[in-house]
């Protein structure tokens, strides 16, 4: 009986192709919008999460300057007291719960090899840096403690630098010029790609901090200190400890604010991920409104259909259809219509999301739950908005219905 009714309603959909298509359009657009928005949204969230985890997870970044204020972090209105070697030493000595602590000073510097040149992000650091940032070497070795201390002219380069100077060749042992100093390449960093902010993370040169300070920066300053938490210590616990130690070594009296900032990369990652999730939800909700409009379209067309087919209902009632048969017939018809619209909408929505993921280079992340929800929801819309017209049809008096022109 039910199967028969489904078949009948499919027939009726086919008999009124244009009208069925127009009815479907509302649902198709609604479902396509919801699916596209949610799929693109979850792709974006994944992308943001991946980008931020590239920056390093469980990582605290200490910089000089007040956390926030007029002029932003490290505000321009204040005299910035840079981080110094003794700050680093204090952290290394006193901080518990850290896996790696590493200083870094950075500058965009012209790097030259032969006749080729490239402006690259040159970082002066120590042997713990790779560990702190979770970076790996493809080949070669990191610099040793003694090289780091003495400031030997050795360096590690990123993939972009290698390609610029050596193509696919082996850069190890080659000497490049960084600013006015030369250094020998001892290792190649694993490619990391671009950050979400469009920064090339492979256009880098790492060298011992002492060498950087002496030959490139010309001072003893440390721009930032990376503190990676160990597995047992959450960054939220580590952060106050770092703050205490630094306040102590930098002799900041309790009545004064920090003259340094500590950024928790995990928290930033969470915040950004939750922001994109909220955004996704909002877009989904807006798209959901169009689904509702689609549902009203279904109701409208079903009312028209019931009126138009009053005579048919009369015939059916006369030859023995019960109220429930008519009710079910129109309910099934509305549900079949909206389900059909839902399925077409899902396909279009996924296609749109696929297109978007290609152009925006975000992962294509279709969620089975969302798709199932969309199917269920469109069926529900058919039933809810089809019910009133169906009931109206079922309640018709067969004599009046047969007389209807």
């Amino acid at each position, binding site marked *: 009986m039910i199967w028969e009714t489904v078949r009948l309603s499919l*027939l009726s959909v086919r008999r009124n192709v244009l009208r069925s298509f127009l009815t479907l359009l509302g649902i198709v657009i609604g479902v396509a919008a919801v699916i596209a928005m949610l799929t693109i949204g979850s792709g974006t969230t994944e992308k943001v999460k991946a980008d931020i985890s590239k920056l390093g997870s469980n990582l605290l970044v200490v910089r000089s300057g007040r956390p926030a204020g007029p002029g932003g972090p490290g505000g321009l209105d204040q005299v910035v007291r840079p981080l110094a070697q003794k700050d680093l030493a204090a952290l290394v000595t006193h901080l518990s719960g850290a896996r790696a602590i590493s200083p870094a000073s950075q500058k965009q510097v012209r790097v030259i090899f032969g006749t080729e040149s490239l402006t690259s992000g040159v970082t002066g650091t120590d042997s713990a840096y790779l560990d702190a940032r979770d970076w790996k070497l493809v080949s070669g070795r990191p610099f040793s403690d003694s090289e780091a201390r003495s400031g030997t002219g050795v360096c590690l380069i990123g993939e972009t630098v290698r390609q610029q100077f050596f193509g696919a060749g082996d850069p190890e042992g080659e000497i490049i010029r960084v600013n006015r100093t030369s250094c020998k390449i001892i290792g190649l960093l694993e490619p990391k790609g671009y950050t979400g902010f469009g920064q090339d993370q492979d256009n880098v040169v790492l060298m011992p901090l002492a060498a950087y300070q002496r030959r490139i920066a010309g001072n003893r300053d440390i721009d930032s200190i990376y503190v990676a938490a160990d597995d047992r210590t959450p960054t939220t616990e580590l952060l106050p400890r770092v703050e205490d130690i630094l306040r102590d070594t930098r002799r900041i009296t309790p009545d004064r604010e920090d003259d340094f900032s500590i950024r928790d990369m995990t928290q930033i990652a969470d915040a950004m991920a939750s922001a994109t999730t909220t955004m996704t939800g909002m877009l989904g909700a807006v798209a959901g409104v169009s689904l509702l409009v689609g549902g009203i379209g279904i109701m409208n067309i079903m009312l028209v259909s019931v009126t138009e087919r009053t005579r048919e209902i009369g*015939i059916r*009632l*006369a*030859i*023995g*259809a*019960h109220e429930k048969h008519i009710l079910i017939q129109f309910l099934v018809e509305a549900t079949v219509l909206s389900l059909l619209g839902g399925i077409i909408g899902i396909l279009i929505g996924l296609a749109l999301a696929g297109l978007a993921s290609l152009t925006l280079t975000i992962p294509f992340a279709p969620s089975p739950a969302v798709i199932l929800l969309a199917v269920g929801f469109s069926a529900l819309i058919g039933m809810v908005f089809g019910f009133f017209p169906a009931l109206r049809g079922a309640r018709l008096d067969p004599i009046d219905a*047969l007389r209807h022109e």
Partner: protein
Amino acid sequence: MSGSLLITFDEVWKSYGQGEATVHALAGVDLAIRSSEFVAIMGPSGSGKSTAMNIIGCLDTPTAGTYSFMGIDAGRLDRNRRAMLRNLYVGFVFQGYNLLPRTTAVENVELPLIYRGVAARERHDLAMKALTEVGLIGREHHTPAELSGGQQQRVAIARAIVTRPTLLVADEPTGNLDTARTHEIMELLTRLNTELGLTIAMVTHEADVAGYAERTIRFLDGHVASDTMNLEVV
């Protein structure tokens, strides 16, 4: 010739409106139709004949009095029970054919069987058999729009008899047909009446159409004005 009592009207009233504005479509009608009878029902419009037909076909219920169909007090049944009664025992033929548009002849004929829960294959076989009986085989896949008036009425008759009903209610079945088609349809109804023993209650305006029936009941102002046996036509 005629069998047991199939239909009885006992003091049947049908009234519309209230108070001063009350109109009595049927004002205390007594009537009996035996099974296998072929009855023509005549009368001017407003005479109550259509109301009587609706009650006979279990589409309507009397306001007062008793309508009994096959010994069942059909006038007191609810909508769905009457629907069941119609599905099991009554076939309908209308002046305007009332076939489902854009639906093939055989699908139209199958319709009452769907509400009986008959399986698809058996339904198709029964529908084809009914179409054969009305002489429409070969046109079973035509839609009403592709059939002439006479052919459409044959489909409607096939739909009415496919359930092997006890009673056929025909509301001016030839009202839209020319003389030749009218004769064909009436011959068909007569044949169904004699060969299958189908009881037929038929409303008509035309005396020569009524002549095919064995009995004519005339309504006037909500009463039975006359009830006469017809002379044999042949």
